[in-house]
């Protein structure tokens, strides 16, 4: 057994402080969104829900929310479909240039986002594309595929090939095998990828900022509001709702991902 290390008693304390540091910013937004004052100061002034109520009447905000929803759904579907292709190619086959192809697809993780944004802006305008939600979707998909792929690769890995081979031997077509054998096993990973990419798209700012033209998504709308101090409480309420949405979506995604992991492990054990 590992011997207990002398500084260990301090470690849990350090972990607690670290977690406080991690969670403080996202817990403060909800706290002040219910605060009955236009400024973010202590002590708190009292409880109110008026900042949330003020969101409903705001038509610009609702339009931005609709834009975000459209973009999020399109981005999550597209990047998950493309992620499935790539993840399956990587986990199921071996071919020349595999590492290079995988590297290119994963590259957005290792690039400053502003460079991706600038290059997409240039190519869009170069080909005469009008900046719109379509350009935002195209750009965010590039950015989301790596995340979709890492979720899917972990779901596809360890998937027992002999199940598919049995299905081929019994006369199923490639598509039939995918639908009836592969899909049920990897379905949780796919749903998890859909949720994760939707969340990333919902929160993504830089690409949307450069590529949205006159159709703001929620983060672009918030960016515009930050200039006005008086708008802050409304932004805090909206931000709290967005954080809540992200946390719920990610929790569901995580539960599904773990279920997928257990299922592939169970399939391996048989």
């Amino acid at each position: 057994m590992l011997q207990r290390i002398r500084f260990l008693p301090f470690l849990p304390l350090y972990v607690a402080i670290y977690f406080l540091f991690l969670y403080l910013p996202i817990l403060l937004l909800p706290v002040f969104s219910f605060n009955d004052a236009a400024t973010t100061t202590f002590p708190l002034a009292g409880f109110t829900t008026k900042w949330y109520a003020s969101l409903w009447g705001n038509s610009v905000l609702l339009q931005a929310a609709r834009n975000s929803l459209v973009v999020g759904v399109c981005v999550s579907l597209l990047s998950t479909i493309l992620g499935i292709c790539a993840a399956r190619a990587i986990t199921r086959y071996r071919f020349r240039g595999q590492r290079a192809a995988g590297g290119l697809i994963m590259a957005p993780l290792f690039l400053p986002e502003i460079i991706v944004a600038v290059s997409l802006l240039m190519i869009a305008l170069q080909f005469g594309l009008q900046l719109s939600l379509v350009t935002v979707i195209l750009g965010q998909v590039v950015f989301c595929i790596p995340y979709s792929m890492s979720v899917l690769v972990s779901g596809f890995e360890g998937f027992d090939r002999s199940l598919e081979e049995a299905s081929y031997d019994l006369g199923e077509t490639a598509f039939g095998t995918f639908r009836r054998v592969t899909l049920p096993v990897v379905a949780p990973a796919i749903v998890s990828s859909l949720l994760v990419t939707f969340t990333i798209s919902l929160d993504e700012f830089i690409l949307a900022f450069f590529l949205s033209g006159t159709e703001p998504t929620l983060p672009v709308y918030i960016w515009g509001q930050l200039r006005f101090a008086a708008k802050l409480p409304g932004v805090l309420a909206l931000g709290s709702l967005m954080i809540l949405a992200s946390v719920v979506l990610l929790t569901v995604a995580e539960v599904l991902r773990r279920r997928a992991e257990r299922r592939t492990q169970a399939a391996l054990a048989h």
Partner: protein
Amino acid sequence: MSTAAIASSPEKPAPAKGIRWLHGEEARGLAMISPTLLYALALLLVPVLLVIAYSFWTQNYLEIDRTFTFENYRLALTEPIYRDLFVRSLWISMLTSAITVVFSYPIAWYISFHGGPHKNLWLFLVTIPCWTSYLLRVMSWKVILGYGGVLNTGLMAAGVIDQPITSLLYNANAVVITLVHSWAAFAILPIYVSLQKIDRSLIEAARDLGDGAVRSFLRVTLPLSMPGVISAFLIVMIPTVGDYVTPKLVGGKDGVMIATAIQAQFGKSANWPLGAALSVTTMVLVSLAAAAVVLSLRFAVRRLR
């Protein structure tokens, strides 16, 4: 017998090489990845090549002069304002990644060695804040660190200080604090993965042979987790060098970074070639700095052993 084995079995009459290749495992793999690969080629590689091409051209009012020139790079590297921004951006990104790695390492170590049966839950809790909106988190730090912000008014209400501290917001420190917070999970995860891979019996062996806790950590655990530390360093350092939101919201005058200058060339200044040259220079500089960091970390670890 597996289908793949049948396809490649030598008894089968071997068709011409090209045709066999088309029907083999390779072709199917390539076909499978091609939609994603084509997408990445069209919307990642081609755009980046276009940026590189532009960086050698010149903006002539509304026209683009396509004569090859190094003028943009000369401007990017000699103009004091850009030089300062490059130096500051590199410095901030290196400082951020160093702090993030140092402060995250114990967390990764704790989860890996003392996480018990709930390691996945710990990791999930670490990643949650990093998945929520980046813009909102930066905004939250602005609220925390501001003159009339949470920290100042909180400390004043608690009687710790009489006057608000003015040096919290709108400087490079505020940028570093915010970035360290934003990238914490990206540092913890790779370090955790490399710690998980360490064979625990090696550490026991070191202890059995008389190394103390600290020595066995320095000579076994730390060197073996170095791949994770290095990838954590890179995955934080390279993206943060081009961060736009954080310097803009909490950086003030002393915290401006290169992304602001790049954005300006695509906005009101409308000088795409210069913006492209600034982008390419940023990438080259951060790659060089990253290589230097990797080499010196490797060297340091070899000395430790």
